[in-house]
């Protein structure tokens, strides 16, 4: 059985089939990219996995657990974290508190303990803080710890969103267009980090991306979608040579 798999996944908005009977599997420790023209259903698949949408039909399994039975907030507890295409950070909080929210699924303290700030809460906070610091070091975010998100440039916010996802200590991470809005240098950094996440942290990566250089550099396998259907699946080179994919992009 695969590590993560989607079976006959469909999402219909009235007559519009955003995702139409899509099946795919991700193996443990793999980087899988989903590519496709605008409106192909890539982000819809992510929103199905993170339970923002309910699938019209089909099911999603992660480590043989049915993800579609979980509420949206239960996905993080399974070990799935995600970033958003249009950054969804907590704007009026500091970088540190944004990252600490990422530790939420690991918090064990009760409300009354927190109001009194008992030693157990303090000890837990230090553990969270140490884990967050490891992520800060991994992504070179040291200069921004106490800055408010609302004052930071787009490129940095993008990295902070990745950092927040890593703070949940995920087994599977969903990256929704990690390089959108980044310059060449920042995209390079991003590709190294995605590789490192796989090799150093052992995280499985499922990624939606338009930048083919980045896709070629990091992906183990690629899925091409169009009109909610799978066009091709395989190594980056194979998929790009596939006649249907060429047709979808060039309209030939």
């Amino acid at each position, binding site marked *: 059985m695969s590590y993560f798999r989607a079976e006959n996944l469909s999402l219909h908005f009235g007559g519009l089939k955003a995702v139409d009977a899509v099946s795919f599997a991700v193996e443990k420790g793999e980087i899988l990219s989903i590519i496709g023209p605008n409106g192909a259903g890539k982000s819809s698949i992510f929103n199905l996995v993170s339970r923002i949408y309910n699938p019209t039909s089909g099911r999603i399994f992660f480590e043989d657990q049915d993800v579609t039975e979980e509420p949206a907030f239960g996905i993080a507890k399974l070990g799935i974290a995600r970033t958003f295409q249009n950054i*969804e950070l907590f704007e009026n909080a500091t970088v540190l508190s944004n990252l*600490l929210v990422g530790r939420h*699924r690991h918090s064990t303290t009760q409300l009354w303990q927190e109001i009194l700030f008992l030693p157990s809460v303090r000890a837990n906070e230090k553990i969270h803080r*140490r884990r967050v610091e490891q992520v800060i070091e991994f992504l070179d975010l040291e200069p921004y710890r106490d800055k408010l998100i609302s004052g930071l440039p787009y490129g940095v916010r993008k990295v902070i969103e990745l950092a927040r996802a890593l703070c949940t200590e995920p087994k599977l991470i969903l990256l929704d267009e990690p390089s959108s809005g980044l310059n060449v240098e920042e995209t390079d950094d991003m590709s190294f980090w995605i590789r490192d996440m796989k090799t150093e942290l052992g995280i499985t990566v499922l990624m939606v991306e338009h930048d083919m250089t980045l896709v070629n550099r990091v992906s183990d396998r690629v899925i091409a979608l169009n009109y909610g259907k799978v066009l091709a699946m395989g190594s980056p080179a194979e998929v790009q040579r596939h006649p249907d994919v060429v047709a979808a992009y060039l309209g030939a």
Partner: protein
Amino acid sequence: MRFMFKTDYEDDIKLFPHGGYIVTYGILLAFLAVAPFVLSSYLVSQMVFVFIYATVGVGLMILTGFTGQASLGHAAFLAIGAYTAAYLQQYNVPFPVYFLVAGVLTGVVGAMVGFPALRLQGIYLVIATISFAFIIEEILARWESVTHGNEGMRVKALQFLGTTVSRDSPSFYFLCLAVLALTIVGTLNLLRSPTGRAFVAIRDSETAARSMGVNVSLYKVKSFAISAAITGFAGVLFAHKLSFISPEMFTLQLSIEFIIVILIGGAFSPHGAVLGAIFIVMIDPFLTYLKDDVPGMIAAVAAAFGAGAEMAAKIQSNVAAFASANGLKGAIYGVIIVLFVLFEPLGLYGRWLKIKLFFQLFPLYKRATFKRQKIYVKSERNR
């Protein structure tokens, strides 16, 4: 300019980031400790009201400032706390017991309001909380066997450990101060632990909070319950301070005053609640002062500029009539809210932080430093 060298994760957690805070708060505490013995009884009484309003302000701030859920129903929570105290007092229930019962009961009611409020956002939530407040007001007026209806209820002086604590005594002052201080410390503790961060996360993006594993519904209900419970505790003190309560004290006007407390103080820090409370408590005597003295002053100025005695008297009576017009207070509140939302969304405490930064950075302060950092209570985005 102070540079902070952090060498321990503890440095990010502790309440007083550096020694300067201990000095300033020490001086403030020393002042508050001697105040009831040196200040006039009128000022001390006003300070007690400041403490009670600030306590409600902190409670409302947890809900509106940190969780992003607006409420215009906090007068009702205050009423539930006050009436619980007044009711239980009739049966000689000791103070600590009815104080706790009032807080817990109000918290439970708050949670019950929180459940239907889960599906409401922004302006709809405001309407829902207003209707809740009207329902409570109506219940207080009609449920005569318990609340004595519009006749109101007399609240006896507080009995604690066999002694009577009168509402004007220093002991009552210190009780209110202690409740406020504990509320603030509890709130700060909450904010530096997972629950407080989850609240802030919900305020800024519910979608992202959910994807980080925050049970948004549960935390909204928790926020409602905590906010209501704090207001309930304040309600007990409010009842004792006024020694008489009736339904028409807990109207929409009072809820609006609570919103003003956090809006004008600054909805992002308990400092704001205290500043806002000082503002709202002192505006009444200030307006009275204006009503009494300003017409005469304007007439004197007019006379100095050559208006005849008859003309001056006419001006004086016209201004006096305007100053005592019905609804002037409401209009002034409205103007103040609009001006603050437009020009200082961070409130008085935000303004203070800017002044502080100006002197810390002198002469390098840039006007643009705060350009991007407007804080809005976002509630329409990302349901």
